[in-house]
């Protein structure tokens, strides 16, 4: 029988552990950026990431000099690693926005310690993703008039009915809004760093970045309104962006692409991949920077649960694709699913995909795996690989064998496909390391609202309450922060 206290602990677990005050929270998080001595492990990690990012630089130069022929793309498989990587990176970005925006609207306090670096992850993932649509055009210097609607000397315009243009608008909007949302969240934290910094140069830089923020209640009022509304805008944005990316495929007629399940299936898959990447980032981060008080065990368990839930939706997607293939009665659709599962040359990757995305997450049903940092990390890596394979299976197997057997041909990646992909991973981690060094990795002012000291007359601060005058559904006299 659980006691009342145990039940309370289970229903409302503490989101900040340890005995913290406003000052200690500010110090612990701020010191990571303000300390003069950079930890040695930072230099090692940054050096490795930066060297890997050079692969991207060299591959891009070689690509611009020689054209898309250096990749393995060819008819019929005209889209391969370029689009797989684009969709993979954009998908990863979506978890950051979900954590920041959607969990804010759902009043989930566990978002507070992870939202800052999750949003940073989103920005860097979108930066990596955006390179592919630009560079895969072959002559990216001409991509300006292909992609962006501006009056040009040839008098031509992009085709607004095409999902490829919808992508341009969606990804540009997503990058911009994510940047704004992230930056707005940083303004009060930069002010905290400005007031604490001893180094004159950094004090000056943080002063500029904080725009003169002073913590005025009148400013906080408008700030909260803007922040909440941005969250409300980012939610339909994140859902629409990956839906539009999925429409790149489903608007075409290729069997295996032309399916109405794609938008929700891709969005769930994006959140799935994104949470895997958030776990890959935050498990080492909380140890190396001793943030266990803020990114608690509870946070990891919740993220594991979200990963399991979205993974199950993705598995449902796989099952439905197989079902449609048969139920449609179309020989092309039926062949497509046979080709993927057992007849085609890439059947191995399909089964690897089922293992990575379907089977590995089943371990998360068990407490032992859900509560173990090591297993969460391992499963997250497997899931990241699995999500990459999913896009591989969708793109390559459908293109490799479509309607006419005389058009069938094999695809295999060449070295530059691999170096470009690995280079973007290096680029991503380089940016993450820079972020960790110079910017507070956890949202300081939001963590302050979680402390019991933040109570006014026994009433816990919440980000979305009286600003929009939402009625409480719980008893106001509950003890705070249980």
């Amino acid at each position, binding site marked *: 029988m659980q006691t009342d206290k145990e039940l309370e602990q289970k229903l409302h677990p503490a989101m900040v552990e340890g005995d913290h005050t*406003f*000052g200690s929270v*500010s110090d612990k998080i701020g010191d990571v950026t303000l300390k003069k001595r950079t930890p040695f492990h930072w230099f090692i990690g940054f050096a490795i990431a930066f060297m890997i990012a050079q692969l991207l630089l060299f591959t891009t130069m070689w690509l611009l000099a020689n054209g898309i022929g250096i990749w393995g793309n060819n008819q019929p498989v005209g889209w391969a690693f370029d689009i797989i990587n684009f969709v993979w990176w954009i998908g990863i970005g979506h978890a950051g926005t979900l954590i920041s925006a959607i969990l804010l609207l759902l009043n989930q306090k566990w978002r507070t310690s992870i939202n800052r670096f999750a949003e940073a992850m989103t920005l860097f993932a979108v930066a990596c993703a955006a390179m592919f649509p630009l560079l895969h055009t072959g002559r990216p210097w001409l991509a300006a008039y292909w992609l962006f*609607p501006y009056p040009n000397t040839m*008098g*031509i*315009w*992009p*085709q*607004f*009915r095409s*999902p490829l*243009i*919808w992508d341009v*608008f*969606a990804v*540009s*909007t997503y990058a*911009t*809004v994510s940047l*704004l*949302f992230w*930056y*707005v969240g940083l303004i*009060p934290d930069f002010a*905290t760093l*400005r*007031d604490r910094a001893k180094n004159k140069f950094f004090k000056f830089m943080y*002063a500029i970045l904080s*725009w*003169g*923020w*002073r*913590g*005025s*209640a*009148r*400013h*906080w*009022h*408008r*700030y909260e*309104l*803007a922040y909440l*509304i*941005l969250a409300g805008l980012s939610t339909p*944005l994140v859902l*629409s962006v990956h839906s*539009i990316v999925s429409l790149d495929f489903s608007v075409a007629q290729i069997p295996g692409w032309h399916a109405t399940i794609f938008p929700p299936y891709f969005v769930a898959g994006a959140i799935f991949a994104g949470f895997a990447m958030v776990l890959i980032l935050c498990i080492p981060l909380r140890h190396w920077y001793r943030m266990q008080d803020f990114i608690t065990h509870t946070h990891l368990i919740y993220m594991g649960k979200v990963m399991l839930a979205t993974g199950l939706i993705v598995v449902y997607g796989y099952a439905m694709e197989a079902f449609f293939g048969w139920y449609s009665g179309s020989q092309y659709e039926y062949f497509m699913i046979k080709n993927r599962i057992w007849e085609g040359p890439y059947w191995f990757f399909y089964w690897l995909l089922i293992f990575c995305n379907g089977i590995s997450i089943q371990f998360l049903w068990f407490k032992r795996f859900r509560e173990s940092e090591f297993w969460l990390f391992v499963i997250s890596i497997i899931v990241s690989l699995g999500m990459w394979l999913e896009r591989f299976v969708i793109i390559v197997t459908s293109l490799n064998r479509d309607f006419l057997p005389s058009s069938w041909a094999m695809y295999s990646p060449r070295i530059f496909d691999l170096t470009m992909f690995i280079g973007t991973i290096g680029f991503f981690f380089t940016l993450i390391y820079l972020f960790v060094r110079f910017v507070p990795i956890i949202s300081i*002012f*939001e963590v*302050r*609202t979680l402390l019991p*000291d933040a*109570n*006014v007359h026994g*009433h816990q*601060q919440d*980000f979305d309450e*009286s600003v929009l005058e939402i009625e409480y559904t719980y008893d106001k006299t509950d003890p705070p922060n249980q």
Partner: protein
Amino acid sequence: MAEFDTATELVDAARLVRDAGYTKTDAFSPFPLHEIDEALGIKRSVLPQLIFCGGITGLLTGIGLEYFVHVVDFPIIVGGRPHFSLPAFIPPAYELTILFSAFTAVFGMLFLNGLPRPYHPVFNVPRFGLATREKFFLIIESADEKYEYAETRAFMETLGAQEVFDVEE
């Protein structure tokens, strides 16, 4: 300017200040406090309405751009679709709506707050640096109608503050 140690003290003091009839007041805290809006008599901002207008502008811009391109300037028949094919036009217009709303939200908030503003008299008080860390402050501006140095200072000292400072311009 009065300094307080806890949020509760600040809110209670703010209520007393509002009840005494002061209007040009402000409170400072390291995180947003909801009760303070009502305690100081801060009115709801016009920002949400502005954001809505920004969103409508974005929507009209998106539809307008697509209309101009596909109906006026360079109409071509694609698969028998009408020149103004609204279902296909929705995604870019939708994205521009969100983009313009987001711009209005962020830049509107910064503009209405008067930021960037590197200098403000409150920064002249050295302890004010703690406002972004752990302490709470309350000020009554000299521009207020009821302001009278000696009287206001005496009143602030009755509020239960840690310390009361004078803020130089």
